[in-house]
């Protein structure tokens, strides 16, 4: 069971056609997820982390979005070779998702229990009655008081945190092997954030569900994840186990991110660091490293050629896409 790779993404490319040109939202992204582990994907908004994960289940709307290359290998099979119908049977049953904004992600005109029950009826063939009972049970499990009555409510009658709990109940209803949580706490109050994260953590641990946690919040990553991928401009710029990332970031962008977090252990005198500049426009990306215009350590080569992912210390799961490591590699 240990170290069993359950999901592998290889060379994923996703683009969007807009009036101004083609946006390369995901550009040659690869990573893998192990059973029972939690993988964090971190990046600013627009870095391509959500699109990456929507691409896994082919939930990119065409038009305008389109997956142009890559493989998603789930339990040894490339899902991109499957038919739409086959992928559909995976959704919600084997791989399910939680989205950022629980208000817009729940259907406003359908009762809460019914939205939870749908997947149960579909994937487990439950009758309406069974599914309702199970839904209420799930609502209790995630801590909704008066679940029997609340089941007949509509989403707008719930608070934000409650709604996200409903989303979680919905996602976990069929005991999926993988849960993709797309910024599940961004829209919530800080106090509620912790509760929700705790809930995800407990539930996934209980059922040894693998989790992909998409977030821009390094605190969440530190709390939840076993390993991390950092995305920038549609690419993975650094990947590492959780401790390595925090203690020895290898990419200037990651370092920038870490420096921008206020930390108690840092001496009072040091300034809070921010990354200057803005993320690049993903249309017509210039050659070279996309981070180069904002990078304090930029070199000549950085504006000419895009860096490949360099393996750090011989550990294939520890990489950084930065020319700085080319030198180190050469020297080493």
């Amino acid at each position: 069971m240990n170290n069993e790779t359950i999901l592998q993404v290889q060379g994923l490319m996703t683009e969007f056609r807009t009036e101004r040109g083609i946006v390369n939202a995901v550009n040659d992204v690869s990573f893998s997820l192990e059973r029972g582990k939690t993988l964090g994907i971190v990046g600013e908004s627009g870095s391509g982390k959500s699109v990456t994960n929507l691409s896994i289940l082919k939930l990119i709307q065409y038009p305008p979005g389109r997956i142009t290359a890559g493989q998603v290998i789930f339990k040894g099979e490339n899902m991109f070779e499957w038919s739409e119908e086959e992928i559909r049977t995976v959704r919600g049953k084997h791989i399910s998702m939680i989205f950022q904004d629980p208000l817009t992600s729940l259907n406003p005109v359908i009762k809460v229990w019914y939205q939870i029950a749908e997947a149960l009826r579909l994937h487990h063939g439950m009758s309406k009655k069974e599914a309702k009972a199970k839904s209420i049970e799930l609502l209790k499990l995630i801590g909704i008081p008066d679940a029997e009555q609340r089941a007949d409510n509509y989403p707008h009658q719930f608070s934000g945190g409650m709604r996200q709990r409903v989303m979680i109940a919905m996602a976990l209803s069929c005991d999926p092997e993988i849960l993709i949580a797309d910024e599940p706490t961004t829209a919530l109050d800080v106090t509620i954030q912790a509760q929700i994260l705790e809930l995800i953590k407990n539930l996934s641990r209980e059922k040894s569900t693998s989790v992909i946690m998409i977030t821009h919040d390094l605190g969440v990553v530190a709390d939840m994840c076993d390993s991390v991928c950092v995305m920038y401009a549609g690419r993975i710029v650094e990947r590492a186990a959780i401790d390595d990332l925090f203690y020895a970031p290898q990419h200037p962008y990651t370092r920038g991110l870490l420096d921008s977090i206020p930390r108690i252990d840092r001496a009072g005198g040091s300034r809070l660091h921010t990354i200057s500049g803005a993320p690049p426009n993903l249309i017509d990306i210039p050659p070279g490293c996309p981070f180069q215009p904002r990078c304090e350590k930029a070199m000549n080569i950085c504006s000419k050629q895009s860096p490949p992912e360099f393996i750090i210390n011989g550990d294939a799961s520890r990489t950084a896409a930065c020319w700085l490591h080319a030198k180190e590699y050469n020297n080493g």
Partner: protein
Amino acid sequence: MGRYVVRRLLSLIPVLFGVSLIVFFLVRLIPGTALEMYLGTQVEATPEQMEELKRIFGEDKPVPILYLEWLGDILRGDFGYSLRTGRMVLPDILSRLPLSLELTLFSLILALLIGIPLGIASSLRQNSFGDFVSRIGGLLGLSLPQFWLAALMVMVFSRFRGWIPMGNYVSFFDSPLQNIKMLFFPSLAIGIGFAAVVMRYTRNSMLEVLQMDYIRTAKAKGLKKPSVIYFHALKNAILPVITVTGFNAGYLLGGAIVIEEVFALPGMGRLALYAIYQRDYPIIQAVVMVIATLFVVVNLITDLVYALADPRIRLDDVVR
């Protein structure tokens, strides 16, 4: 909700008062009087006959006095007598009402049956050739003059017995089959235009809804495409369609004049038209009042249906 309905019905009062005022004085601004129409061009009347006739036709008093008298009468539920036929106004109107309501209902049903599926199909293939064709087709439906279409229908289908009403209106409760058969073409002539409107609203609303996060959620649950589209999307997309349907229903009640004329259907619109031609003031006044009331009531029903379809709306909160 009860309080809401009462409040809405109370708001009817100033509207009806305004309508009554306008209609009463407006009809009397039209040149010619009911008495003149009655006599026509072939009849001679002696002066003493004219005196008597003027009294009968209510031309012996100033208009404001007549208005107050009439207002008093209708508040007591007395709509008076037709100047043209001498019959009581209210029963005459009530006997037309079922047809007008039925015609409205049937046209709307046809419009929804045609418009919603086309709108959905069109939205699912936005900007495809099929979308383009069906949009143009829909707009074409909207561009057809109703009476032209109706006249063409009479021309083509009149050779089939029983398909065109020909003044032989059969009530739904007497013979539903015959009734539906007869109202099919008139309803279609009216419904095609509205089908286009419904289609347009459905399409636009579906396009909007299909971009929503909850549709993505539904897909992520692994739901099959039909249940995503016809359940999750349509349930939301139908909301603006309800509004526009209700609005058109209100509009249609008195607006089928031309169709009633071509198909010789005894509805409210035709009653009003003939009353205007004949300067039959009591009838015109009453018809317009009834239509205005229906208009408001239909709008109220629409709002209630809307509230039923959208759980987020709570009527008591609606401020108007």
